[in-house]
């Protein structure tokens, strides 16, 4: 099909050159102007995300595994899949003690974990690279250690958010974290649990992705 490629590109080039287009400069100021005071960012994120049924838990660096364990026990969640090779995974196991929820390491390729992940595992734990105040969005940055499906397949997604990793806008986050230089296979913004309004505009949660999103805020 390289014929198609060449003929398309040749035509585009020829017609563009006979009618060149001078675009206006892109002024990013209207986005850069969106700023929130440091103490306003977390409440704003919380308000926006709670408006779309996201749940929040507060914890500290020392007690987050225990806070999570108690939450899952209270909610009767039987199993949690986590990323064993991450720092958070290590901390989780260390701080777990004896919980009623079974911890399942995501230590194999998806191909070998599919049935379990789709059919029995109830919750998945991931980290985040921060959150965005403008829209109330978490930044997920899956890695070799922390697979993409952790935050997608289990019915409950639990996301660890460090309270000191908050950005004003999507633009600011990608600039400060230098995304354009090193995009991973997949980056995600997640702003709530899965939802749809395709049936007569009635909002329903949990259509294909997680039914519940729980943000575990780790305060410094």
């Amino acid at each position, binding site marked *: 099909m390289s014929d198609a490629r060449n003929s398309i590109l040749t035509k585009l080039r020829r017609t563009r050159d006979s009618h060149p*287009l001078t675009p206006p400069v892109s002024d990013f100021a209207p986005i850069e102007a969106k700023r929130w005071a440091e103490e306003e960012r977390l409440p704003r994120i919380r308000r926006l995300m709670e408006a779309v049924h996201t749940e929040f838990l507060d914890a500290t660096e020392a007690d987050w595994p225990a806070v999570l364990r108690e939450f899952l026990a209270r909610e009767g969640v039987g199993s949690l899949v986590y990323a064993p090779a991450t720092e958070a995974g290590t901390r989780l196991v260390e701080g777990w003690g004896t919980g009623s929820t079974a911890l399942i390491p995501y230590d194999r390729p998806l191909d070998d974990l599919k049935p379990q992940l789709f059919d029995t595992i109830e919750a998945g734990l991931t980290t985040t690279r921060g959150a965005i105040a403008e829209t109330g969005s978490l930044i997920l940055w899956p890695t*070799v250690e922390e697979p993409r499906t952790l935050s997608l397949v289990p019915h409950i997604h639990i996301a660890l958010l460090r309270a000191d990793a908050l950005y004003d806008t999507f*633009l600011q986050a990608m600039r400060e974290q230098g995304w354009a230089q090193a995009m991973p296979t997949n980056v995600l913004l997640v702003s709530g649990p899965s939802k749809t309004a395709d049936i007569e505009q009635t909002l329903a949660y949990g259509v294909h992705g997680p039914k519940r999103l729980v943000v575990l805020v780790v305060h410094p």
Partner: protein
Amino acid sequence: MDGNAPDFAAASRTALADPQLRGNFRRAMDGLMSKRAAQFADAGEWTGVRALAASVRLRALSKLPELLETLEENCTRNGITVHWAATTAEANAIALDILHRVDAKLVVKGKSMVTEEMHLNAVLEKDGIEVLESDLGEYIVQLDGTMPSHIIMPAIHLNTKQIAHLFKRKIKDAESREDAAYLTDLARRVLRAKFQAADVGMSGVNAAVAETGTLCLIENEGNGRMCTTVPPVHIAFMGLEKVVEKLEDVPPVISLLPRSATGQPITTYVNMISGPRRPGEKDGPREVHLVILDNGRSSIYADPELRDTLRCIRCGACMNHCPVYTKVGGHAYEAPYPGPIGKILVPQIEGLEKRGAMPHACTMCNACVEICPVKIPIVEIMGRLRVEAVKPSGAVKDGGAKASRTEAMVWSGWAAMNASPTAYRVATLAMSKLGNAAPSSLPMLREWTNVRTKPRFAGRTLHDLTRAKGVPDV
């Protein structure tokens, strides 16, 4: 699909006679309009971000061939296989080739307007491949055996009761419950099994970033993530205009698209894909393909005025605000893209012979132009297409298709009458005296009078009346 030209007038009459359908659309569009308005309450912010987004799209078009090459280069470096298709037939052939090679039996699809343009589902089914739409709205429409009626809300023409009946008929063990939460959960169960078993996942692309070789997809349901993450092969389809230059160009587009489309600050998921599973990664497809489709877009690009059509980010807001769309609904257009954007895009892709009626289904009220997040002069383009239909410049497929001798004669008569004061006076006097005697069945009157009463000419002309009031003639 390429048989007889669709009859927009006839389809509209049918739609207008269906009070259920009109009610469904009216309610939905009212809701979408007020939610959008709430998102853009700050007029300064709207003006600034809108100008930025328009500049992003214009800059991309100004460098389109170069950006497509850069996109190809960076995607290839990332391990994405890039394919080019001049026509929908070529794009379908590319898809079939990949599917045959991996011996695919089951395909799951996320929302993709380009594949609607290709009629891909019909092609795959004919080939014996099971293909399942997974966006809930698209799934409903597929079960119903019809077409999407809105680009963002495909099943907006149906209400809960109708969907409950459909599910009861088509899904094993479905209960008869008119409850959106129950119906959604039912679809979840059916589709999760399919995501697990699918050999190939397909998706559209909201924006492709040349700088990094990244495909951006936005959605609320998670089905797009499922289709692009779980099956071993992912094929993405994009129209060649969907490229943007830099990663930084994505935030302005993402800022306006969901707010314009459904009045939400952002979609639940913004999914940015820059390649297949890398060594050591535990999930993600092992192959990612990008099919870049032309299908008439390069011809649209060739004309400096029509080119603006390609700025579109497919938010659907112009539909929600269109008085014609709201009345007749999406199906009357019998096209993959209905509403204002459809009325300018589809005739340019499919030609004025088949689609000459579409640019006329417009009151020129300008509502779409006022809300379009990338400032497309939709109404001007509509006017241009009307001209192309009778006086072809060669820029649009099947230009001149609607040229009619009678119409041309009437207009040249009209021009002559207005060019001479004497002719004008004689003609208006004649109309005031004799106009009422003209039968309403005259060829060019009929279109108007078959649904309306013929207006009566006043006994005296306006000139006459103003003169009587002491206003001198110029």
